[in-house]
């Protein structure tokens, strides 16, 4: 009973404290950490992608490039946000990122409301695309 009660309290506190700008806090695709996509990356020509090298594409406004070991492009272009599924119908435009592999195929995209703290998470996905 104590276990269930404590779990319920912590769960409720988390749900109540969720940032509404981040959308529902239980999007199964958010930070899934798995290469679930496999198709030619849209708008690739304007993203600074180099053949043979994976690219981390970060969509956010007013942020700096995260510290990862590889090529990074940061953009706030709404066309890119739309193309990469990081624009929602409840006015949620990122922050998030996508990973494009060396063959120019998009392998991963996610919203990530805590981008500033997730350099390592982004780096794992970027290195995994090599």
């Amino acid at each position, binding site marked *: *009973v*104590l*276990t*269930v009660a404590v*779990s*319920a309290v912590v*769960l409720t506190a*988390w749900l109540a404290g969720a940032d509404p*700008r981040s*959308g*529902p*806090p*239980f*999007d*199964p*695709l*958010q*930070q899934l*950490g*798995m*290469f*679930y*996509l*496999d*198709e030619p990356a*849209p708008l690739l020509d304007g993203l600074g992608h180099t053949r043979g090298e994976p690219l981390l594409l970060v969509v956010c*406004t*007013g*942020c700096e490039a*995260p*510290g990862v070991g590889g090529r990074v492009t940061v953009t*706030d272009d*709404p*066309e890119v*946000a*739309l193309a*990469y*599924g*990081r*624009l*929602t*119908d*409840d*006015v*949620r*435009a*990122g*922050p998030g990122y996508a990973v494009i592999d060396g063959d120019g195929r998009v392998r991963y*995209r996610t919203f*990530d*409301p*805590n*981008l*500033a*703290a997730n*350099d*390592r*998470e982004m780096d*794992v996905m970027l290195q*995994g695309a090599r």
Partner: protein
Amino acid sequence: VRRALTVAAVVGFESYLYWQYAAHGAQFHYFIHGFTGVAAGVAVLVLVRGGRVSTRGPALDVVLAAAAGRLLSAMPDVLFLAADLPHERWMDVFVAHISVHFVPAPVAATFTVFVLAVAGATAAALGRRLAGLVTAGAAVVLLVVGLAARAPIPRTLEEVRERPGIALRCPLLASTAFLQASAAPPPTFEG
């Protein structure tokens, strides 16, 4: 004393795990894998033992079964952080670690499974074997039904955009939405 030590160990362990997940803004994952892992460990113990679990002290067999399920369900996340290994579909062997994201209403569903499993173990610990078996069995059935009804994992961005709530299709509306969202305080990077 053993009971107090057990409670302290469980609280300390779970607090550490929650801190780790929260540091990545991934509480969603903490909850669904935590609920599923504990439920699986406890339910399997009750079912395999025919409803006979420890009825004395801190019920260490139940606690250890819960911990085993908990660790197993978190293993892909441990591999991600400790071995830089992104998730893969085969990691469903770790208590459906991938598929459980896509069950209907994942947080509510896994919490319900968790409550049923704990209730089953409690009933068994009180000597009510049949009630324990039925309730723990219900937890397993609910989890299996949820997994069977899970949403497919998208393979393309078009399929991502078809998900409820994600992505406008009209570029004009998209631009408007983006500009409005941009008015909100941006995230800040440190270091």
